[in-house]
Each structure stands twice: as C-alpha cells, then as structure tokens.
C-alpha cells in the first residue's frame, strides 16, 4: 500500500474499519460499506487501488460468482496473493473494498455487475475481461440487454491491450466482444436462445444449426473458437482433450470452468495445472452446499432469471427427489415476476414440488398452467417436514435464497 497517495490510503483504512464494524454489527458481510465510505473520500479509489496489479474482470448475466471463484482457484497456482470479491459485491464499492482488503495482492479477479462494466474497465485497466452470457434479468431495473451489449462494445473498443475471453455461442456476447483488439473465443454453449433471435449488428433474423449461428442477412456469424466445451470434456487451445470431472454440478458450471481455463492460460497456467484446482471447488457462496436439516440433506441452488432456472433444472437430482421452489420480488430480485412464465416447468412432473416465498402464489398459478402438482409451504422447514426420502433440492431467487440460508444456518 506504500505507493498509494495519502488520501487513498486514508480512504482505504477508514473504509476497512467501517467494513469491520459492519460485520461486527451483524449488518451483512461488510464487503460494501467499506468501499462506499472509501469512495466518498476518494472518488478515484478504484483506479488507484488497481494501479500496478494484473486484473481479471468477470461479467455476464449468470455464472459471475462461480467463474470468479474458479479463476481465483486456478490462478492460485502462481503462488501469489489474489484479491477477489468472492461474495458477489460487484459494483464499484464492492470492488474497491475487495482491493482495499488485499493491498499487496499483485493479482485480482473481480466479478462486475453488467451495468458497471464500462466504468470498471476504464478505472481498473484490466489485463483480461471475461464475458459469459447475456439474457433477460430483472428487467424492471436493468437496461435492455442490447443496450448493455452496445455499451460493452464501446468500452472494449477503447481498452487497448486488454484480452477478452468470450463465449462465442452467445450472439450478443460475440457482438460485444468483437470490437476488442484481442479476443479468445470459447465454445461455452448457450441453452437459453430466447434473447438472441435478432442480429445485434443489423436487426435481421439469426439462423441456428448444429454448427452455431449466423445472420441471414449480413456477415455477422459465430466466430471460430480456440477452446471448446464438449459434453464433460474440454478441448484446449492446443487441441488436447481433458475430462473436466468437476465437483460443481451441471452444464452451466462446465461452461464456466472452460472459460476459467482459457483465462488461466493468459497467465501461463496450463490446463493440466489449473484443472485439479477447479475440481476442488465444491460450493460457491452457499450455492450447491448440502446442509443437514432434521435428518435430511438439503441442497441449495440459486437461480435468478429464466436462463438460470433452466440451468438449475439440469442440476436437480432425478425424481422422486422433491424440490422446493422459492420466489421473492424484492428490489434485488426484480419486482416483476413475469419471467416465471418464460420458464418451462413441465420437467418437474413426477416429483413432489413445494412452493414458498413472498410470491408463491405467482408460482402456484404458473405450475397449475403447466399441470405440475405442488404444495404451498411456509418455508424450508415446513417442506423438510413433509419430505418422505432423505434429501431435497431447493431452487430460490436472490433474497429467497438468502432467507433460506439464514433459516438453515440459525438452527444447526
């Protein structure tokens, strides 16, 4: 921290003290308040804290926190400290707090809120920007995603010397990334197609086949890729094939892992070195955790938008393992529950389904329309008490997930 100007040092110290006080007072994990106070004292704090470090930014609608964790794990192989906002505080204050807490770390892996990316690129001058996917999410407070992609595109065009690692299978991501000087394209897959039927370049209809996608009118098409996710295997940039065999479940996490491997290679960490480190990651900020509750195993999955729910269904234990669905509509969740109708719930037929959360009636009507039988419950314990077998999965959106974590944490 010796290199920081006086005011930035003061801002970091006071911010750090506030974070500690916030944690002691039981008001969250303290990862934001410190940054808020620090930024008030020194508006350029993020730029000052970033200077002289090699920074990786990670953004996208889904998978930010997990991919950030995976990249951090892989870069650990370099034997140097890595700063990271591991708990998802991903706006300016959270980033400043994460860097402030690790003043001597030469590396930083930071997840960034989609809307903040342009400003954060400018402030941190990252070595790598990682673009995962873009789809509808909390549309009552977020910008339309084409506008988000356009702002990324402009920011990346101006970021000289920066490497972009981008998912070529998501057309909006491909459009945003293609303005950058250096792009490493990854075939990371895209299950959710409903937000990318339109060519981002010319507005015409996109055509899709087994080879990928291309515009029916202009020249915009899926770029050829250096890294490929192929089922449970990765094909790396030199054509070597490795089994992923992750501890984290599901296709979406295999996709996140391949992206993490591509980022690691930029730092000289080869797949053979990085992969064992990725396999050790078993839970991310409470997600995928199995908790014992009244003699049963409860596993928590976080899903916040239609694309996320689709990926969460992919991770569920097979029937008849029951599932609890919990939905709130507070500000962090988005106050509009319309997105529930973009999810196809018919895959849940054949197992016991419980619904809870502040908007459980929205879920009830939705499941009724898909002819999925369900029971209303008053919370996770109410569901656990009705489970016949030994385990239950839970899919919850943001604040519902936090409420369930708190409920389960308090009791055991």
């Amino acid at each position, binding site marked *: 921290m010796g290199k920081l100007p006086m005011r930035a040092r003061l801002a970091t110290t006071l911010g750090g003290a506030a974070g500690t006080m916030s944690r002691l007072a039981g008001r969250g994990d303290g990862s934001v308040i410190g940054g808020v106070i620090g930024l008030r004292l020194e508006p350029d704090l993020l730029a000052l804290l970033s200077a002289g470090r090699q920074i990786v930014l990670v953004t996208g609608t889904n998978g930010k926190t997990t991919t950030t964790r995976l990249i951090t794990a892989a870069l650990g192989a370099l034997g140097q400290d890595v700063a990271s906002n591991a708990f998802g505080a991903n706006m300016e204050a959270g980033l400043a707090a994460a860097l402030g807490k690790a003043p001597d770390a030469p590396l930083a892996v930071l997840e960034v809120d989609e809307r903040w990316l342009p400003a954060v690129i400018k402030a941190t001058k990252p070595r790598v920007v990682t673009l995962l996917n873009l789809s509808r999410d909390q549309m*009552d407070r977020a910008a339309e995603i084409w506008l988000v992609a356009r702002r990324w595109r402009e920011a990346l065009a101006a970021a000289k010397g920066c490497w972009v690692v981008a998912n070529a299978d998501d057309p909006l991501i491909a459009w945003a990334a293609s303005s950058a000087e250096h792009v490493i394209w990854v075939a990371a897959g895209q299950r959710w197609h409903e937000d990318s*039927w*339109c060519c981002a370049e010319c507005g015409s209809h996109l055509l899709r086949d087994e080879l990928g996608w291309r515009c029916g009118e202009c020249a915009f098409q899926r770029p050829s890729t250096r890294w490929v996710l192929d089922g449970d295997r990765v094909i790396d940039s030199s054509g070597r094939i490795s089994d992923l065999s992750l501890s984290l479940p599901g296709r979406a996490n295999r996709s996140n892992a391949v992206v993490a491997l591509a980022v690691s290679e930029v730092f000289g960490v080869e797949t053979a070195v990085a992969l064992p480190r990725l396999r050790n990651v078993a839970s991310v900020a409470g997600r995928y955790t199995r908790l014992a509750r009244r003699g049963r195993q409860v596993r928590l999955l976080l899903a916040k938008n239609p694309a996320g729910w689709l990926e969460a269904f992919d991770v569920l234990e097979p029937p008849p393992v029951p599932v609890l669905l919990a939905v709130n509509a507070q500000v962090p969740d988005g*106050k509009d529950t*319309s*997105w529930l109708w973009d999810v196809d719930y018919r895959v849940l037929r054949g197992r016991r389904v419980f619904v809870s959360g502040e908007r459980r009636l929205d879920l009830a*009507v939705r499941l009724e*329309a898909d002819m999925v039988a369900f029971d209303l419950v008053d919370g996770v314990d109410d569901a656990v008490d009705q489970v016949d077998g030994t385990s239950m999965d839970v899919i919850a959106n943001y604040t519902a997930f936090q409420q369930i974590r708190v409920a389960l944490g308090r009791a055991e």
Partner: protein
Amino acid sequence: MGGASTLRLVWVYPDLLSTYGDRGNLLVLQRRARLRGIEAEQVLVHADQAVPRQGDIYLLGGGEDLPQVLAARRLRSDGGLRAAAERGAVIFAVCAGYQLLGTEFGGEEGQQVAGLEILDMRSGRGESRGVGEILADVNPALGLPRLTGFENHQGVTQRGHGVAPLARVLTGVGNGDGTEGAWAGRVLGTYLHGPVLVRNPGLADLLLSWVAGRLTPLAAREEHWTQSLRDQRLAAVTPAAP
C-alpha cells in the same frame, strides 16, 4: 372458429416479441378454453414464417426496441395479421406489440417507425420510463372487473378516431394521458404485461367469448389460485388519490 371446432391461438413472433413472460397469455387462454371443453391449439409463428390468415385469436407480446422494429418490417411485408384483422379475427397485443398495431411508434434511436395501421393510434417515446404495478378500471362498455398488472415501458400512445381506451388508470402510467390501452372491435391492446391475462381472467374470457360465444363459469377450485393471486396483487397496490 376456423375449420373444425378447434380454437387456433396464434402467437405471432415469439422469437422477437416475448420479453415479459408473454407465453403466459397463451397458456391461460388455452387452459380456460379447455376447462370449458373447447379444444385450443397453440400456433407459434416465428419471424421467418408466414402469419396464417385463419387463426382465431392472435397474440403479440412485448419486445426490446430492435426486435420491435424488425417485427414491424416483417409484419408489414407479410400482411397476414392485417388481413386477419380485416376478417374480424381477435387480436390481443401487449406493450411493444400494442404499439405495433398503430400507425407509428418510436424506434431504438427515437426515430419514428411505421406500424401495421390496424388501429388509428400513434406511439412515441415519453420523458421517462413507467415501471411498476398498475391498476386500471376497465372501460364500462366491456363490463370487466379492475385490471391488475405490471408495466415497464417508455411509450406514450395517442388514440385516434374510432379507438376507445381499454381502461382508466388508477395507479401507474398506461398511455400517458390517464387512459390505458386501446380497444376497437375485436382488437385489444395494452401496456400491461404481467402477463396480463394471468391476473385478469375476465379479460381472457372476453377474448375467448368473442370467438366461442357465451362461456360457462369455471368451478371455484379451477379459479382458486388465479383468484388468490389476483386478490393479493390488488391488495398490494393502493389506488392513487383522485
């Protein structure tokens, strides 16, 4: 009803106009028809396909600016929806789809774009975005209970000759002049997504009755969850003082 006794529910361009759970309107119409013993099939028409002229109810959903402009271009050159409207088919359009029914609307750079000219109305961009729960009292001529929904748009819409408002706004923005939506003949448009027919089954039944005639009421257990949700949403939003 077209052909046999199967109701054809045509969802126009789900690939371009389906941003706010628009599938819900289709599913609710299908469910409420089938509960009355009326068979109803879904016909999904993508933007690279021709719009069939023999549908019974046509649905258009919400969309972002770019897909909306593309949808307008395609639908104008296709001509199928306009032909269906002239034939007297039922059209129910939401948000971006609603704006498309008029003579013009605001594009992604704020430019005016030509609409389908099915209704005499024009839309443009308002000063600010209207986002939130909306309550509105339905035009008394339609005889329906209060509307509850969610809106998220920056559009303002002015109705011309022969087009009545669907409702009068109690809380929210709607068309921007205190009215909400538009109605002419068998064509209805609204800024409420939500999806609107889920929370407003009376509106769904109105559309069905325009095609199938008088409908029998559903059993209480068949209305239970819908009614519970509707009561909760109506109670959650207080009408603004007049």
